[in-house]
C-alpha cells in the first residue's frame, strides 16, 4: 500500500520538533521555519524571522532583546532567554539538489547548562574552601604552639601548687608527722629541687617568648659550624619568604661543607616590587664533572615551585644556586 504524506503533515511534524529549525537561502530569505524557532526569534529579536542571516548576526554579534543575553560567544552561541532557559544555536551550510541552503538549529540545554553551572559553583566553593584550609594549615603550627603554651602554663601552675605544699611540709614541725622516716633536710632538699625545676620551666617560657627570626637562626648555625656567612642585600625579615630563604641557606651551607669543604658562604639578595632573588655562593671547590641535583636541593625546588618560585644551578666558575620567590599577594604567586 502506498502511503501518502501531505505537505501539511510534514509541516506539522516539523513544527512539533522539540528543537528550533530554520532553513534559508544564502541571502537569508527563510524557506522553512518551525514553530519553536519562530518563538525563539520573537523571544530574542522581538520579531518574526524575516532574514535568517540577520538573525544569525544578532545571535553571534548583536544585542538580544526582551531580557535575553548571549552567555557564550563563538560559532555555537548560547543564549539565555528572558524566562531563564538556555538555547545553544548552530549554523550549517547544506546542499539540497545542488542548491545551497543554510540551516540554523536551536537546542534547549537549560537542564545541562544549569547542572554545569551548579558544578562550576560547587567547584568554585571547593576551591575557596581549599584556600581556607591551606591558610588554616599554615596557621596550624602557631595554634599548636599556643595550645602547648597553655598546657605548659597549666603544668607550671600545678607544679607550683604541689611544691608549695611540699615546702610547707618541709618548714612545718607539725607536718613532719605526716612523713615518718623523712627528715626535714630531705624534705627541704626535695622542695628546693622542685623550685629549681619550676624556675627552669619558667625560663623556657621566657625563651619561647624571645623566638628568633629565621635570619638569626642561620647566622647562629653558620657560626656554630665555623662557616663565615656574608649576606649582601635585604634578607626578608619574617614570614614565608624568610623561612624559605633560611631553608635554602641551610641546605646550601650543608652542601658547601659536605661537597665543597667551603669555609665561607655568600648570599646576594635583590628585591623588586614583585619578587626576591637570592644567589648562594661558596668559596669551596666547584663540582667536578656533570652536576646532579641531590635530594636536598630537589626538596627545596619543590617547596619553591609550590610557592610560585624556582631555582637554577650553575657550576662554573663557582657553584651558584639562584632562587627566585614571588612576594606573597603578587600575581606571580602560585596557589597550588
Amino acid at each position, binding site marked *: 500500500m502506498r502511503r501518502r504524506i501531505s505537505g501539511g503533515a510534514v509541516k506539522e511534524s516539523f513544527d512539533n520538533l522539540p528543537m528550533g529549525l530554520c532553513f534559508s537561502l544564502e541571502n537569508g530569505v527563510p524557506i522553512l521555519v518551525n514553530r519553536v524557532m519562530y518563538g525563539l526569534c520573537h523571544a530574542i529579536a522581538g520579531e518574526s524571522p524575516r532574514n535568517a542571516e540577520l538573525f544569525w548576526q544578532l545571535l553571534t554579534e548583536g544585542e538580544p532583546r526582551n531580557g535575553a543575553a548571549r552567555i557564550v560567544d563563538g560559532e555555537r552561541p548560547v543564549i539565555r532567554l528572558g524566562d531563564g532557559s538556555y538555547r545553544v544555536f548552530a549554523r550549517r551550510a547544506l546542499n539540497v539538489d545542488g542548491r545551497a541552503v543554510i540551516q540554523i538549529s536551536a537546542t534547549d540545554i537549560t537542564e545541562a547548562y544549569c547542572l554545569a553551572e551548579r558544578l562550576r559553583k560547587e567547584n568554585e566553593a571547593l576551591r575557596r574552601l581549599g584556600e*581556607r584550609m591551606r591558610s588554616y*594549615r599554615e596557621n596550624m603550627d602557631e595554634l599548636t604552639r599556643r595550645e602547648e603554651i597553655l598546657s605548659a602554663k597549666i603544668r607550671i601552675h600545678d607544679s607550683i601548687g604541689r611544691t608549695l605544699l611540699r615546702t610547707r611540709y618541709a618548714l612545718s614541725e607539725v607536718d613532719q608527722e605526716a612523713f615518718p622516716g623523712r627528715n626535714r633536710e630531705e624534705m627541704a632538699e626535695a622542695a628546693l629541687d622542685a623550685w629549681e625545676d619550676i624556675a*627552669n620551666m619558667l625560663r*623556657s617560657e621566657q625563651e619561647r617568648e624571645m623566638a628568633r627570626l629565621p635570619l638569626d637562626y642561620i647566622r647562629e648555625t653558620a657560626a*656554630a*659550624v665555623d662557616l663565615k656567612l656574608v649576606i649582601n642585600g635585604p634578607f626578608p625579615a619574617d614570614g614565608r619568604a624568610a623561612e624559605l630563604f*633560611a631553608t635554602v641557606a*641551610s641546605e646550601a651551607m650543608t652542601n658547601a*661543607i659536605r661537597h665543597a669543604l667551603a669555609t665561607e658562604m655568600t648570599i646576594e639578595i635583590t628585591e623588586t616590587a614583585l619578587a626576591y632573588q637570592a644567589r648562594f655562593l661558596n668559596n669551596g671547590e666547584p663540582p667536578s664533572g656533570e652536576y646532579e641535583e641531590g635530594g636536598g636541593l630537589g626538596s627545596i625546588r619543590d617547596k619553591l615551585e609550590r610557592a610560585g618560585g624556582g631555582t637554577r644551578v650553575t657550576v662554573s666558575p663557582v657553584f651558584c644556586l639562584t632562587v627566585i620567590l614571588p612576594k606573597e599577594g603578587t600575581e606571580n604567586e602560585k596557589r597550588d
Partner: protein
Amino acid sequence: MKKEIRVMLVEDDPMAARHLGFLVEKAESFKMVRVIESAMSAEIFCLKEPIDLVLMDVCTAMKASGLEAALKIKKSVPRIRIIILTSQLDGSLLERARAGGVDSFCYKLADDAEILDIMKRTAEGESVYPDAPPVVRIGEALSSEIDRQHMNVLRELADGLTDEEIARKLNLSVYTVKKYVSHLLLMTEYRNRTELAVAAGKLGLVTPGY
C-alpha cells in the same frame, strides 16, 4: 670505661626540650651535646660535630620536617643513630621512617623510662618501632578504622587541596575522591569536610607538608 653517647636533640618546644634535656642528663652514659629548634640545620651539625644519637621531632621550627632531615642524615652519616620522637599520630610517618632506614620511632606519649629504654636499645644497635600509631577517636570513628587510601585522601584534604587536585596527586578519579570523602564524613559523622580536615589536623592524624 663505658663510651659516652653524644646526643643531639631537635625539638622546637622549649618545654619538651628542657624535659628531654633533664632526662638525658640524668641518664648514665648519655650526654646532650646540642639542642636545636629546627631540623633544617640537623644535617650540618651531624656532618661537623661528633654526634652518636639524634632525638628528632617531626614538626620543627621554620616548618622543617624532622623526618626528611632524618632520612638525609641516614644517607650522609649512616653511623649516627636516629630516633623519631613525635606527638603526630600519622601512620605514614611510621612507614616513611622505617622505609628510609631511621633506626627507631617513639611517640611522645611514652613515659620517661620507656623513652630512655628506646634510647639505650637504639644506641646499642637495636631498631625499636611501635606496631602502629596509638588509636584515637576522630568524630564517631576510631583512627584504626580508616584505611590507607582514605587516610591519603584525608591528608590531602587537610592540606587544602580540591577534589580535582587530590585526584591528580593520588592518581585517582575525581569520583573516587568524592566517594572517599563521603565515606569519611559518614564514618566520623562530621557535618562537612572542613570539620573533618580540621579535626584530623588537630589530632595529628595527618601531617601534610612534613
